[in-house]
């Protein structure tokens, strides 16, 4: 039961990543592109934790944590660059 539920969740998050990629390519404005990239980071975290659950392994949580931090920092840096033309003033 858990295996099929995990497969369903894998499919959902993979489709979500593809839709985000589509939005990154076709977005009308840069704010949408930042939003889509941020969502891709979050979906990647979900996929990584799901993979750890499916394998019964612990080591993917560190990777997920690092991806979460990278996602936050890069989104803020990108938005800050658009707002101020500079990241660290």
């Amino acid at each position, binding site marked *: 039961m858990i295996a099929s539920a995990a497969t369903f969740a894998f499919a*959902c998050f993979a489709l*979500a990543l593809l839709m985000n990629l589509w939005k990154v390519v076709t977005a009308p404005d840069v704010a949408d592109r930042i939003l889509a990239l941020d969502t891709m980071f979050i*979906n990647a975290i979900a996929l990584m934790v799901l993979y750890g659950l499916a394998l*019964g392994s*612990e080591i993917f*949580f560190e990777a997920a944590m690092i991806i979460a931090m990278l996602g936050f920092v890069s989104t803020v840096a990108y*938005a800050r660059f658009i707002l101020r033309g500079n990241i660290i003033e």
Partner: protein
Amino acid sequence: METLLEFLVAALLVMAGIFGFVGSYGLIKLNDQMSRLHAPTKATTLGVGGVLLASMLHAAAFEKYVSYHELMITLFLFLTAPVTANFIAKVHIHRQETRASMPEAGGDDHWATHDTPEDEERRQTAHTPPAED
């Protein structure tokens, strides 16, 4: 008991998958940029939260170890999602709105996202007390 836990983990996984999918589908489906901001920041965060809860429950029930890493990731995501949403909304105000199209900011002032360098200087001098000599 075993079956109940298994059912709980499976239900959490399915719910998380649906939430994640709906969040990203809303991103391409909704028309207005500020409506689009709602879908990923709320639904996708809930989806990831569901996956993390399922993983924690799975580890405790079937792998015989208790894992707290997931709580850390959940906390981090729940703290950072509103901050990134605020930044993206500010980028939208900066690029798509003018001073006239925004609602009143109160007083005779405008919203700080539309500040020019002169405005910033004025704000800074207004807050520093005059030098005494």
